[in-house]
């Protein structure tokens, strides 16, 4: 018999040595692997291998094709371009891990942002208060989604298809469709767009915040009970319920935390575009889902990694920037992003199959 210890790892923590079975019947052959085999197995069994492979490939190809592409400056730019989608992607990932989906993330962001602007500029509240209240609008919208899902028992796709329209209509109602111009936006609102220089390249506080949020939520999902429960609820709701998890409480908390993240993203968006606009980023609903999906998280819930979403967002940004630098028209950029979505997921699946 030649049963070897499985390398399947549910998380990225260092591998626990395969325990000897109490009856000692199991042989472990990891010791017999060559270092190369070991690396291969270790790498291929990682859930992020697919997105990483796609990203590395894209970086190599585009760097060869366009000389302007492979600069630190451009990488910083790409990260700035995708930071809003990536942040929405954190919220989206949380929801998708519970086997849900949130079609309303962009609407919530716009509403929160417009409320911030209205309160600070038209109403004249202190800027800090307006900011906090705007973020709380995000939290409230998340809570509304959560209540519809948990109390009315409506599938998240349908619930957020509804609130997508509702929040967007409120956003237009409050803003009258008008932007607050740059000159009138209080500096605090714009703070996340401010930058600092490293190696002659500009980085922004917004970029930093985005990365920090990813690290934070990667930790939470991997190492806390709440994170574990999110996976359990998404994996099998009924089993989680019977196992004594308060599934409705977990779901509510996920939608509320998602709303909080989206509220913060509203702040990030203002810093990014310099003004407060009721329409900037209305297309980010699907874009955030695209990032999650390319990052290898399953739309059926219970499987995936938050860092995949960051990779997914960056991959889309790299393609969009690379294609544009290589002189492709927007039409063909759209076409290629379509192929990318399918291709990236196909590559991910193929690699994971080999990796097992």
């Amino acid at each position: 018999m030649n049963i070897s210890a499985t390398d399947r790892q549910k998380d990225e923590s260092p591998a626990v040595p395969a325990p000897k079975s109490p009856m000692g019947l199991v042989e472990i052959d990891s010791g017999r692997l060559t270092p190369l085999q070991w690396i291969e197995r270790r790498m291929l069994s990682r859930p992020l291998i697919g997105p990483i492979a796609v990203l590395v490939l894209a970086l190599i190809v585009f760097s060869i094709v366009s000389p302007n592409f492979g600069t630190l400056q451009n990488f910083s730019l790409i990260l700035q371009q995708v930071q809003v989608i990536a942040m929405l992607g954190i919220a989206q990932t949380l929801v998708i891990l519970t086997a849900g989906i949130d079609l309303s993330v962009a609407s919530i962001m716009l509403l929160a942002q417009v409320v911030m602007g209205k309160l600070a500029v038209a109403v004249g509240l202190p800027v800090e208060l307006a900011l906090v209240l705007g973020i709380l609008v995000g939290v409230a919208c998340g809570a509304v989604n959560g209540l519809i899902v948990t109390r009315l028992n409506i599938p998240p796709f349908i619930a957020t298809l509804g609130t997508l329209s509702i929040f967007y209509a409120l956003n237009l109602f409050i803003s009258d469709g008008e932007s607050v111009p740059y000159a009138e936006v209080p500096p605090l609102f714009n703070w996340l767009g401010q930058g600092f220089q490293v190696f002659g390249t500009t980085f922004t506080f917004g970029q930093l915040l985005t990365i920090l949020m990813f690290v934070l939520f990667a930790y939470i999902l991997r190492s806390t009970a709440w994170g574990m429960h999110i996976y359990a609820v998404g994996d099998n709701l009924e089993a989680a319920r019977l196992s004594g998890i308060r599934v409705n409480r977990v779901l509510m908390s996920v939608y509320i935390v998602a709303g909080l993240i989206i509220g913060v993203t509203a702040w990030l968006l203002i810093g990014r575009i310099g003004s407060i606009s009721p329409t900037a980023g209305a297309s980010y609903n699907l874009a955030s889902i695209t990032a999650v999906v390319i990052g290898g998280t399953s739309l059926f819930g219970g499987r995936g990694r938050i860092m995949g979403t960051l990779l997914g967002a960056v991959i889309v940004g790299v393609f969009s920037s690379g294609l544009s630098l290589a002189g492709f028209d927007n039409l063909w950029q759209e076409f290629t992003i379509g192929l990318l979505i399918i291709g990236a997921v196909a590559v991910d699946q193929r690699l994971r199959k080999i990796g097992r």
Partner: protein
Amino acid sequence: NAAASSNSGEPLVGLVIKTQDNPFYVKMTEGAKAEAEELGYNLQVASGDGQSDVDSQIKAIENFTAQGAKAILVTPAGDGIIPAIQKAQQAGILVFAMDSPLGAASGIDGTFATDNLLAGQLVGEWAKEALGSTPARIATLDLSTDQIPVDVARNQGFLEGFGIDTADPTKMWDETDPRLVGHEVTDANEAGGRTGMEKLLQKDPTINLVYTINEPTAAGAYQAVQAAGLQDQITIVSVDGGCPGVKNVQQGIIAATSMQFPLEMSKQALQAVKAYLDDGTKPQNSEGLDFTNTGVTLVTDKPQDGIESEDTTWGLDQCWG
């Protein structure tokens, strides 16, 4: 207020706009409501769901026809609505196009529009003068890949005004002039403007003139320009004339913009409705155009010789939104 006043005694006039997330149409609606109240009409508004949502507009025209409207004002999202307009006309309804012309062949009763080609030309001519002898490196930030008529007219007008051969004037991006560095589509909002500008600058950091489809796009583009520290090198021009846009002209964020007049547009159209309902006169097109031009004015604080313009003080007085 959710429901509009339904004074059922007053003649019904329907206004069909393209989208409600653009202040231009919001203002047009406000102007129309005010004028309708003045004239004693019951004005109702319907909207599509985007710049090219033909289907919602057809629905709206049918619904107004069914309600027995006396006149319909529509901002066409495409010539797909012509058959619906003709059906409405057969039902005895007066139909005007607003904002963008449908062409004489449509048989429309009248058109009240901004001359978007002219709007583009004005900023194009101004830019040529402003740049003077500096060799031009031009980028355009357009609306979308769909080649929407307004998008095309403004873009081609700008190039024409600058003196660039537009090849096919019904198509964007078929030009071969070496001064044109590139173009990106932006969805006409700030986020698209910034990302588009960043990509263009990455492609060619020598850009010194940027045309933008509207002022929100220009505001976004400026953020990218500023981040790259190129605000002294790059001139941004735009079209629209909304108050946030004019304020940005005042701040020097946008160098010049062509102002259009949605309030005037509604007013003229409703007065023409009254004229027709009173004695059957139909509006006359402006000279040399197949529509009634409701006016375009260049707004800038850096006037150039030989080019008529107004400053931002005037602009802030006249702007909409």
